[in-house]
């Protein structure tokens, strides 16, 4: 009797377990181990280090709040924190002020070249942001072209424009870099809002302004709110722009860099990182809440064409507004391209046409170019595998705690690059068990951690399109899990994997904020080289390298767009 119950309780379940197809469990355990070792452990490590004394030693005996006390005592810390908030809030407000009208105009006013506006509109987000920052130095810096021109006009009335370095420069550059998030999201909200709702209000006798205030705006408010918060998260995590154009004004990411690079004080940097993450996480939670409110947009099924304003005044205003914004946001790219062909640009016009800037690239930056391509492609390859498998687990298997997995994989998406770098350094350099400091491996891992979400999201999107019955019917037909994955699932999610990977690759080519804390003499990348050249005042060399980067990124994105329709732009939106 006892024997029988033992058999039933223990032996049969074990037998059943081994009769199952075990391949998926083995495959699935690999990414989980990766996440634990290279994400959870470094983050935990960073968190603990934040409570240790100044330095880089890992010492659990004297945990205290000294590092955090600096936020109360040190003027530099306080200034940085204030700057971060002021900067991010300003950028958010200005992005909303530019993006919402532009979205409304493109969606509802009859203006020419809408498609061009939409595809050019995404450019500032795709292009490296630190390139934008240093081109504004060329335009409005100490020797800036535009500053010279404006001062020539303004000096007679007694005004002199200061150079762009500082808060104004950061706000300007960041706004022009991040406003497309608001623009594109509010465009799609304005254009997808069901016109029948507005028409119904009109039939009930509401005025145009009343309709806008009571129908249109409330319906799209969550979308716009979410995009504004996204801009905030991006701004508070941005390293490149404050590093290049911030001058004496520190923000949290640059303060972290300063702590690590200047003092090798990992524990102090960890504390700043923790503060930075807490702010980002709080805003992210607000954003998630706002996004969850967005669902009522999609209740209706029948819809009619959006009616466009065709009054000449509306059209003129709309066209001029969009044109100005577009010129302002594309000015950096154009400036860089011009600059790259000249020796210097100190007056009104650039001087000394030359191709030397390009000719020097193979000599000066050969290693950086190969490094960039090698690091980006390796990281992309592994991120593609990792992201696809994790997407498959969370979406198909829906294991208990898949929400945690989802959060874990999305976390680096919002963690500032400098924070990820600090986490990896604190876990894997110096006296740690696995020492990776200065290696290619640590950069590849950092890239994977930061960019796997791109592939993950893209694959999740294609998986939700994929009917699970396709896989079930394959299994019933006699195929094992692996055969099914190879012949049915993989071919159908491949477009998602590819578009996620290309997005990953193009953003990695321009990665600066993580690399700058992790690179060694052998692992310098193109963005590092550009950053160094700007710091040395070698604008020509920096411009030529940047132009190469711009052209490569542009070609990849353009090709992708022609193959995949406008999907690429969509994946940037929430990014």
């Amino acid at each position, binding site marked *: 009797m006892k024997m029988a119950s033992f058999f039933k309780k223990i032996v049969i379940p074990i*037998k*059943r377990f081994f*009769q*199952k*197809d075990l391949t998926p469990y083995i495959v699935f355990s690999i990414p989980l181990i990766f996440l634990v070792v290279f994400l959870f452990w470094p983050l935990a490590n960073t968190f603990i280090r934040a409570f240790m004394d100044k330095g880089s030693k890992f010492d659990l005996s004297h945990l205290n709040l000294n590092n955090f006390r600096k936020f109360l005592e040190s003027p530099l810390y306080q200034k940085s924190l204030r700057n971060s908030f002021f900067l991010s809030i300003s950028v958010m407000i200005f992005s909303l002020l530019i993006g919402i009208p532009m979205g409304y105009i493109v969606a509802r006013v009859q203006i020419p070249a809408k498609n061009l506006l939409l595809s050019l509109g995404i450019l500032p987000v795709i292009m490296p942001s630190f390139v934008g920052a240093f081109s504004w130095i060329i335009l409005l810096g100490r020797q800036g072209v535009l500053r010279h021109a404006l001062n020539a006009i303004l000096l007679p009335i007694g005004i002199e424009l200061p150079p762009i370095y500082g808060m104004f420069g950061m706000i300007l550059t960041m706004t022009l870099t991040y406003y497309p998030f608001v623009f594109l999201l509010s465009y799609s909200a304005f254009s997808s809002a069901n016109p029948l709702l507005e028409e119904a209000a009109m039939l009930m006798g509401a005025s145009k302004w009343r309709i806008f205030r009571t129908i249109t705006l409330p319906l799209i408010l969550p979308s716009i709110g979410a995009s504004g918060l996204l801009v905030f998260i991006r701004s508070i995590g941005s390293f490149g722009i404050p590093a290049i154009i911030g001058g004496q004004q520190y923000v949290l990411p640059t303060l972290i860099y300063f702590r690590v690079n200047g003092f090798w004080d990992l524990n102090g940097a960890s504390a700043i990182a923790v503060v930075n993450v807490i702010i980002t996480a709080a805003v992210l939670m607000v954003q998630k809440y706002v996004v969850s409110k967005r669902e009522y947009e999609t209740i209706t099924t029948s819809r009619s064409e959006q009616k466009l304003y065709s009054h000449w005044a509306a059209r003129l205003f709309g066209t001029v507004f969009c044109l100005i914004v577009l010129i302002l946001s594309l000015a950096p790219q154009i400036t860089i391209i011009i600059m790259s062909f000249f020796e210097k640009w100190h007056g009104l016009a650039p001087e000394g046409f030359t191709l030397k800037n390009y000719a020097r690239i193979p000599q000066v930056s050969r290693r950086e170019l190969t490094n960039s391509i090698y690091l980006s492609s390796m990281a992309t390859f592994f991120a593609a595998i990792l992201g696809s498998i994790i997407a498959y687990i969370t979406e198909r298997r829906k294991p208990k705690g898949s929400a945690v997995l989802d959060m874990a994989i999305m976390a680096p998406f919002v963690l500032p690059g400098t924070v990820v770098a600090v986490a990896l350094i604190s876990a894997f350099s110096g006296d740690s068990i696995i020492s990776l400091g200065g290696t290619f491996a640590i950069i590849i891992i950092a890239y994977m951690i930061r960019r796997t979400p791109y592939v993950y999201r893209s694959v999740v999107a294609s998986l939700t399109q994929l*009917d699970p*019955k*396709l896989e*079930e*019917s*394959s*299994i*019933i*037909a*006699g*195929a*094992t899990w692996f*055969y099914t994955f190879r*012949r*049915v699932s993989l*071919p*159908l999610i491949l477009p998602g994997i590819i578009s996620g990977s290309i997005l990953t690759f193009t953003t990695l080519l321009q990665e600066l904020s993580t690399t700058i804390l992790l690179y060694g003499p052998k692992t310098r990348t193109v963005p590092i080289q550009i950053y160094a050249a700007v710091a040395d005042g070698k604008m020509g060399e920096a411009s030529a390298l940047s132009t190469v980067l711009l052209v490569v990124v542009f070609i990849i994105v353009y090709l992708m767009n022609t193959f995949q329709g406008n999907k690429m732009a969509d994946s940037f939106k929430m990014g």
Partner: protein
Amino acid sequence: MKKPLQYDRVNKIFNEGSKHAVHALRDVSFAINAGELFCLLGPSGCGKTTILRCTAGLESLTSGHILYGDQDITSIPPYRRNIGMVFQSFALYPHMNVFENVAYGLRVRKLDDKEVKRKVNQIIELVGLADVLRRNPSPTALSGGQQQRVAIARALVYDPDVLLLDEPLANLDAKLRRYMRAEIRRIQKATNITTIFVTHDQEEAMAVGDRLAVLRDGIVEQIGTSNELYHNPCNAFVANFIGKMNFFYAQILACDSHWVKATLYDGTLLSIPRKNYREPIHPIRGDRILIAARPEHLSISTEASSSPSIAGQVSIIQHLGHIVRYEVDVAPEFSDQPLEIDMDSLVESVREKDNIRIVFDQQKIAVYGSDASR
């Protein structure tokens, strides 16, 4: 050689142990004969699809056994069961052409190309897609009926032991649905594969199945041929689910071994053959009972008749072609719903709102004791 399929006290509880636990199948036991086309019929959520998915191995049983012949297949993984399945959405692979879709199960079984080609052509011929295969397009370019045939061919090509059809006609329009259900029966009889056909449409189930099982809330209510279920439903639920059934209240007056005598609210006396008495088993004088009559077992009359009848008012007259359907309002003590009455032809003098008499065919009406199970 095909074998019978047997379900032995099958239980399935989803989310067992949590507060969202759903007992989807309760002690389900029945057997399907070798080569039979067996229909599982019931309202949505009754557990019919769960039985199918358990048979395929896509869901594991909470307890009980499924046997194929003498072999217990309960814990055999789905890919080793040799089962064919057609899904409601067809689940055709959009990245493969028609030939490769059909050949999929053969490729899995590693047959050589010549054999694959021969078998695919043979099955395509059977399902009537020979000219489609010549063009061999992507399945996304096919019409609903053609996709359906591809899905059936794909499930049959490797000669499965059991064929499972999960609401296979639900995605087709009404006319095609009627045509395809005849096709499915033809193909099933040609291959003689033991088949389970799941549907919520009783007309479809009666037209297609050799036998039917009616399910409700995870319990098998009755199993039988279409004829048995229509003429001898075991309870009010089955009676109402298979075809239309009118129910009305009565009270038992007397009963013997041949007849049950019952009175209606207005004193009308009905004599019903004892064999039409379904439940309760031992009627007692004074019991309130439910009397059930098919629309064709009632008729409309303008004058008094020798058969028992009752007053009613015509509310709607519908011409349905082969019959005319009258919807008749009656006193609430008699029935809380309007009665449906089918006549072979229009009763000329009767208009909507007219007061008429409803005449009972006493040989055909049945008695169900309680109205709880309706």
